[in-house]
């Protein structure tokens, strides 16, 4: 996990400070612009989550010797990239067990962004979160 990632508490604070949609979405777009792009070699068919409107790529790798996983995410749409930056911040430095148990719906609901997560096929975000949880669960002790 990248060390220079904005902490999720900071993002929550920032988002709660804005009182109109324009500032919130400019902020999300800035988060999206700041998200380091995934290496093209990782953008394989196996790592893609298809949506109707945008695509999401995801890799989950175990971190040998540490109880964390390395997550990389990318999308062709900027706002989705911003939402991915948010998901990455939420999962940062968590163990696979914590990731599986983390209530991402509650986070998105608090941030008033639940509609982005609920779009069943729209932007690929929901399917991406489900895939993170499945892959993370493979790294949890049985």
């Amino acid at each position, binding site marked *: 996990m990248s060390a220079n990632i904005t902490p999720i508490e900071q993002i929550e604070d920032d988002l709660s400070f804005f009182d109109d949609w*324009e500032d919130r*979405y400019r902020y999300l*777009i800035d988060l999206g612009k700041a998200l380091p792009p995934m290496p093209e070699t990782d953008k394989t068919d196996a790592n893609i989550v298809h949506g109707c*409107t*945008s695509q999401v790529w995801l890799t989950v790798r175990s971190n040998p010797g540490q109880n964390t996983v390395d997550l990389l995410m990318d999308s*062709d749409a*900027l*706002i*989705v990239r911003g939402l991915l930056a948010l998901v990455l911040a939420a999962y940062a430095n968590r163990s696979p067990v914590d990731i599986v148990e983390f209530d991402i719906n509650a986070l998105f609901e608090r941030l008033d962004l639940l509609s982005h997560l609920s779009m069943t096929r729209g*932007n690929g975000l929901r399917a991406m979160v489900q895939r993170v949880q499945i892959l993370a669960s493979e790294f949890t002790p049985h």
Partner: protein
Amino acid sequence: MDALTDIADESSVAALSKIRADFPLIAGNEQVYLDNAATTQKPQAVIDALSNYYARDNANVHRAAHKLAGRATESYENSRESLRRFINAESREQIIFTAGTTESINLVAQSWGQTNLQSGDEIIITLLEHHSNIVPWQLLAQRTGATLLACNVTPEGEIDLADYHAKLSTRTKLVSVGHVSNALGTINPVAEMISAAHDKGAVVLVDGAQSVGHMAVDVQALDADFYAFSGHKMFGPTGIGVLYGKLELLNAMPPWQGGGEMIETVTIEHTTFNSLPYKFEAGTPNIADAIGLGAAVQYIESIDRSMVQQYEDNLLRLATSAIAQLPGVRVIGTSAHKSGVLSFVVDGAHPGDIGTLLDQQDVAVRVGHHCAMPLMQHLELPGTVRASFSLYNNTDDLDRFVAALTKALSFL
């Protein structure tokens, strides 16, 4: 509403304002609804027909020996007659109620296709088609060994007719083509294509999902062999649609689903089938929505269609020239013959981002591949933003759409 007079004459303005008031979701909503190619809103007359049916006339049709069933049957069959009139079919037996365009196409693929196609035969579609007019034929080709060919599309988004004529041959058994493209709005020259196909002895199905809500359709004038459409894109309920077919074709086709309603006599060993249209309507039909669709037909018949079509054309032209002036905007589908749909991309901006930013401003559009992935692959686009118009949209909607798009572009 002053701006309306720019695109509609004085006498039409009052009629158009009244139309807007007929649609509760439009009249009572701040949202600008420009996703009409996905589904249209419903006039009060359709909502009332559904509600009245369940409140007063609900019974199963055709069989029972009581007055209520008589009323339900009469309403259901009256609706079939309205639909016959709507597309100018010769007889009501040719109006088969289905769940919608997709089911209508699948019915033909299963019943007619399975009986009439074999290895070596060819099915022609085009790159403009909706997945509903691709996948059933792909499955049919796999089952029968027939070959599926797709006609090319020009950079303007029109069917490449030279390619169509080159692909047509005596091997062609079926041509299936959309009347209006759902992704680009192109009105295809279906009458010409049908005539050319008939010269080769091929049968033609027209996917009318995007045409019936915008223009008068005459299946006899087109000489279409099959015509498929959905109720919900022409102000009717979801889950109901129509398959029209020529009588000799429908009579020769085997049933595709078995059950009640579609039988004449049944023994354990053998069944004889009911006549048209019931042969293709197995089980209790979607009575309420068929009646609702009949009400939608009556609503459409109550308005001046040529005036509305002219108005919609003006709205589309105005919208096209307004967004073409915005930096980086490229209209996709520039045919001179278009209906209802304005598809576009913005250089350097993903359609999904534009859709999200428009939604934040209460402007509803569709973004993505519009269930036409082969077309998007051909155009080398990840998708487009699609604003689609209907008769209740007005110039205020247009102004808000253009303002919202301008603001969205400032974000990206």
